[in-house]
Each structure stands twice: as structure tokens, then as C-alpha cells.
């Protein structure tokens, strides 16, 4: 399983790179943000917080870079990402853990939905060209050019303020205590429709276009002509032969654009004050909460890597050529 092995190595290297970037960035930044921060809080920061900052930024004059790095990894494996200022003294890890499920659910549902819908539409307009469906393309061009968050703003304006169908913000009804009971789940779903819908609408265009182009390319492959020559039913040729092959680059594209979708969703959470990681990141940037920002970067990156691995598994299942023993 050469393919799988290579991908595993790639993910390990990427994870290492993300952690190292996270370690390096605060240390190579010009100026001294920590000192500025400490000055700004004028002694209101507890010693714990200052210590956490010093560890994060490597301002401990006694430690060498190498020992700091080792120390950093050590704390990482212990799940210690430092303390958040914004939610002081809550550890960063706890803040993220609390908000992560919201983001994972939102991103997961929205991106899979957008992928499925977009790919299906792409199959349709790529298979039979020269029909009215081609008119969808310019519309998608416009939608893909709109920033996610602005579409979110418009959605809120139209569907939450002007016609108050959906709630303007939040992840659930303020009067409810989070938990796994029907009323709360219903409320959470209700609150997620607008943000998820907006993510779907703004990201679906790329899938439509990509799949349409791949369908056009794959349709001229010999095996599609053979399938038609065999007199197979139209659906079988369209899905089993053309779309089945055209979807492969879509799946690898899905893996690669996850980072982009996640970024968009984070901003969407900021717009909707959705209780996910994005909203926390928004609060962290507002309060210059560096430990929290960095923790979020790290966790989000690792989450994207895990999602990538899942997409790879899907790819291996879909393309027998990758399963070839080398």
C-alpha cells in the first residue's frame, strides 16, 4: 500500500510543520507583543498568564531554542496549550474543546452537503450541454466571487431582520441549557440552518464548475463511448461510467479545499456569533489573546488533516488504481 503509506508520511510531516510554524511564528515576529500586552494590562495579568505568555513566546532568557522546542512538544502532548486571556483563567484547550463540536458539525454538514449538491448539478450540466442548465454557470461565477461573510450578512438582513424567519445569531436558544435532549437539538438545528445554508450557497459554485469541467473531459474518454455502444441505460452511462470517473479529482479537490472551506466557515461563525471555534477566534483577535489564537490555529489544522485523511480513504475506496500493490 504505497499510496497510503506516502499519504501517512505526508500528514505526519504536515502536522509537524503546523506545530513548528506555531512554535516559530511568535519567536520571529518583530517587536515584542508580549511586553506590549503586559504593559497594556498594567499588572492586571496574573503571574500564571505572564508565565504562559513567556513560555509561548520563548521569552525565557535561560532556555535555548532547542530546549524550548522540546518543552513545547512536551506540553503539547500533555494537552497544554496555555491559558486564555479572554476567558482567563480557562486553559486554551478547554475553550477550544467547548466550541469545537459546533464547528465540526457546521463544517461537516455544510461542506458535505455543498459537495454533494454541487457535484450532482455539475454532473447534470456537464453531461448534457447546450441546455438551459448552462445558464447556472454565470450565476455560480457570481456566487463564488462573493465573500462568505457578506452573503451571511445579507442572509441575516433578509431572513432574520426584514423577515424574521430565522434567528439572527447564536447556536441555540438562549434560554436552554446545552445538552442532548430533543428541545435543545431542535433549537441547535434551527439556529444552524442560516449559517450552514450560507456556507453551502457560497461554496457550491466551485463544485458545480469543477464537476462540469471534469464531466466534459471524461465524456470524451473511450470507455464512455464504449458504454454507449453497449446500449447501457442512460443513467448507468452517466453515473457509472462518466460521473464515477469524473468524481475522482473532485474528491482530491475536496480534500485540498477543506482548509479554504473551514476558513470561510470560521468567518461565518463570526458573523452569526455561532458558538464555534470561529467566534472564539474572533473574540481572541479582539482581545489579542495570542495563546488562544495559536491554539485554534493548531487544532483547526489538525482537524483539517484528519478530514483530509478521511477524504483520502474515500479516494482509495473509489479508485482501484491506488490500491495496487507496488
Amino acid at each position, binding site marked *: 500500500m504505497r499510496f497510503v503509506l506516502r499519504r501517512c508520511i505526508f500528514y505526519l510531516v504536515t502536522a509537524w510543520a503546523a506545530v513548528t510554524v506555531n512554535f516559530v511564528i511568535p519567536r520571529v515576529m518583530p517587536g515584542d507583543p508580549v511586553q506590549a500586552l503586559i504593559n497594556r494590562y498594567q499588572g492586571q495579568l496574573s503571574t500564571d498568564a505572564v508565565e504562559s505568555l513567556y513560555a509561548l513566546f520563548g521569552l525565557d532568557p535561560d532556555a535555548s531554542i532547542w530546549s524550548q522546542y522540546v518543552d513545547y512538544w512536551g506540553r503539547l502532548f500533555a494537552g497544554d496549550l496555555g491559558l486564555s486571556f479572554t476567558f482567563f483563567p480557562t486553559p486554551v484547550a478547554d475553550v477550544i474543546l467547548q466550541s469545537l463540536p459546533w464547528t465540526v458539525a457546521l463544517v461537516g454538514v455544510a461542506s458535505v452537503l455543498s459537495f454533494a449538491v454541487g457535484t450532482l448539478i455539475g454532473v447534470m450540466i456537464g453531461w448534457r450541454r447546450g441546455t438551459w442548465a448552462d445558464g447556472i454557470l454565470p450565476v455560480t461565477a457570481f456566487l463564488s466571487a462573493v465573500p462568505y461573510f457578506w452573503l451571511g450578512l445579507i442572509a441575516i438582513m433578509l431572513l432574520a431582520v426584514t423577515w424574521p424567519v430565522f434567528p439572527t445569531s447564536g447556536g441555540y436558544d438562549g434560554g436552554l441549557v446545552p445538552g442532548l435532549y430533543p428541545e435543545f437539538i431542535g433549537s441547535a438545528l434551527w439556529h444552524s440552518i442560516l449559517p450552514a445554508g450560507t456556507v453551502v450557497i457560497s461554496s457550491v459554485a466551485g463544485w458545480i464548475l469543477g464537476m462540469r469541467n471534469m464531466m466534459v473531459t471524461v465524456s*470524451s*474518454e*473511450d*470507455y464512455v*463511448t*464504449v*458504454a*454507449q*455502444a*453497449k*446500449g*447501457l*441505460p*442512460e443513467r*448507468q452511462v452517466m453515473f*457509472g*461510467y462518466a460521473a*464515477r*470517473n469524473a468524481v*475522482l479529482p473532485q474528491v482530491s479537490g475536496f480534500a485540498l479545499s477543506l482548509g479554504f472551506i473551514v476558513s470561510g466557515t470560521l468567518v461565518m461563525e463570526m458573523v452569526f456569533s455561532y458558538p464555534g471555534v470561529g467566534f472564539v477566534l474572533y473574540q481572541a483577535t479582539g482581545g489579542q489573546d495570542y495563546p488562544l489564537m495559536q491554539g485554534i490555529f493548531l487544532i483547526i489544522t489538525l482537524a483539517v488533516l484528519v478530514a483530509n485523511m478521511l477524504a483520502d480513504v474515500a479516494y482509495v475506496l*473509489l*479508485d*482501484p*488504481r491506488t490500491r*495496487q500493490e507496488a
Partner: protein
Amino acid sequence: MTPEPVLEIRDLAVDYGYGASPVHALRGVSLTLHKGEVLGIAGESGCGKSTLVYAATRLLPPPGVIVGGEVRFHGDDGPVDILRMTDQELRAARWQDTAIVFQGAMNSLNPVYRVGRQLTDAIAAHRPGSSRAEREERARELLTMVGIAPERIRAFPHQLSGGMRQRVMIAMAMALEPKVLILDEPTTALDVVMQRQILEQVMELRDRLGFSVVFITHDVSLLIEVADHIAIMYAGEIVEQARASEVYRQPRHPYSHGLLHSFPPLHGPRRPLAGIPGSPPDLQALPSGCPFSPRCPEAMDVCTDVHPDLGPTAAAEPGRRVACLLHTEGRTLPASLSV
């Protein structure tokens, strides 16, 4: 006894492009394939030989458009015009009536499906009553028939060699025991030994199952060995039609003559090889008169003005037609084209 026709192509005309000035890729081509016969179609690349069979099966991809003619298939219920069939009729007729083995052995198989699935799906589509086990059994049988171990039913196309893939395609084409098998340069991507084996296999199957074959290739000497009749195409038209042995012994069209002498003969005495000077014409800017006239060693003044129609040869040999002004009455054939 006159053999019964299976496939009659009449005046087939094909354009490429939908715009104001499409390329006329086929201009009134007529051909008849008889039961049990092997019909060869030869010509340089771009002469329209593949276009002909793809158009006759309605498989020609865009921007090809059929702009005239008819393709009559003589099935059990009498002749039907393929060009007037609805999509459903066409779909139902395909592979039962006419099966095709395509040029690219590498790309004819769907890379993500196992060979077995691709062998059985045509059976499933046309014989909805068959059981899964029956179809699978048939697939094994078909593979055995072309000399591939039946276990290979579980293989993916990328696990097979080029020659094996082409055999699988032939097995696939045999799945519904079609009346006509079209081979579109089935062996170009393969080495000579493999070519030979595969062709022998097809001919052996034909002897056993009795289907008719349309065999397209640019290799005339190969055609002469396997075909009963040969049609030679140039720039979207048929320029000569005759029995294979006749073409080999005595080509009547200067182009056939040139083509024949561009390949070493497989049997018989050696003869000097000579290519055809020049290159195939641009279909967008065909010369006036005979399309071959600019390259023709025997061209006369009249050739650039008058378009020759396919008609009897100067010697009026039965069953033989040629499109060359040299064969009009009162002209003397050059030595190379007369006996």
C-alpha cells in the same frame, strides 16, 4: 447465390462543426456489408474511415453531425434505418446488432470497474431476465473464449496488459453474439505478434459464430489477408471498392496503388516500396475536381475540374467500382493500373 446484406450504408454524409462553414468529413459514402463477410476499410489517417463507422452506429462524438443518408440494418424483423431510430430503439439495438472494438485498448475499459462487471453490464441491460449467476458464468465463458483465465473476471483493467485488455474488449463484443462486429484499428497500439494473435482469434470466432466483420485499418497488406472485400477511402469518399484479392493483384485507383505500395506485402514476391507524395488534403479546403489530383502521379488536366464518381472500372469487372477519371471511356489506363 447473392449473399444477403446485413448493413447497408447509403449516401452517408457527415459534417464536423455546427457553425456556418462545417467541414464535410464524409460526402455521400455508400457501402454494403454482407452476411458472414469481412469488409475492410483502408486509407490514411483522417480519410474518414473511423468517422464512417462511428456515424453508422451514431457514436460519433460532437461536433460531428450526420447530415444525410441512411444506414439500414437487416435484423430478424427486416431492415431498419439506424439514423431514424429513437434513443430507446437505438439503445436496445446496440451491441445486439453491432458491437465495436475500439482503437484505444488502453482507454476502452472503465478504470474503476472490474472486468467482470463491464462484461456483464451489457448482458444485464439487454437481457433483463438473466440472473446474476448466469451473467457471471457467461462472462467467464467469454474470457475463456478469448484465451484469458476466467479468474481474471475479478481483475481491474490496470492489472491487465494491453493485449489482454484488447482481448477483453473482444470478449465483451461477443457477449450478446452480435450480427456485426466492427474493429476500429484494434491492434494499432499492440506489437506485431500480439496483432497477429488477436486477429487470428477474431477470425476463428467468426468462423465459429458466423458474424460479419467491418475491419478498419491503415495497414492495407493486413487487410488483404483477412478481408473479403475492401473499400479504400480518401478525403471522406470511397475511391475504390473490390474484392480483396483483386485489389492486391491489381489496384485500379492511383491512390490504392500508392497505398498498396507503401506497405511491404506479407506474402509473395517483394516489390519496391514507395510512399505517396504529399499529405492528405485539408478537408476545409478540398481541391476542386478529384480530391486526390494534387498528389496523383497520373493526374490529367480534367482531374482538377471534374469530380469523379464511383463507377465501373475500365474493364467493367463485376462487383468492382472505382472513382477515377482514368476509367472513363476512351481513356487508356497507365501501365501501373492495367493488367
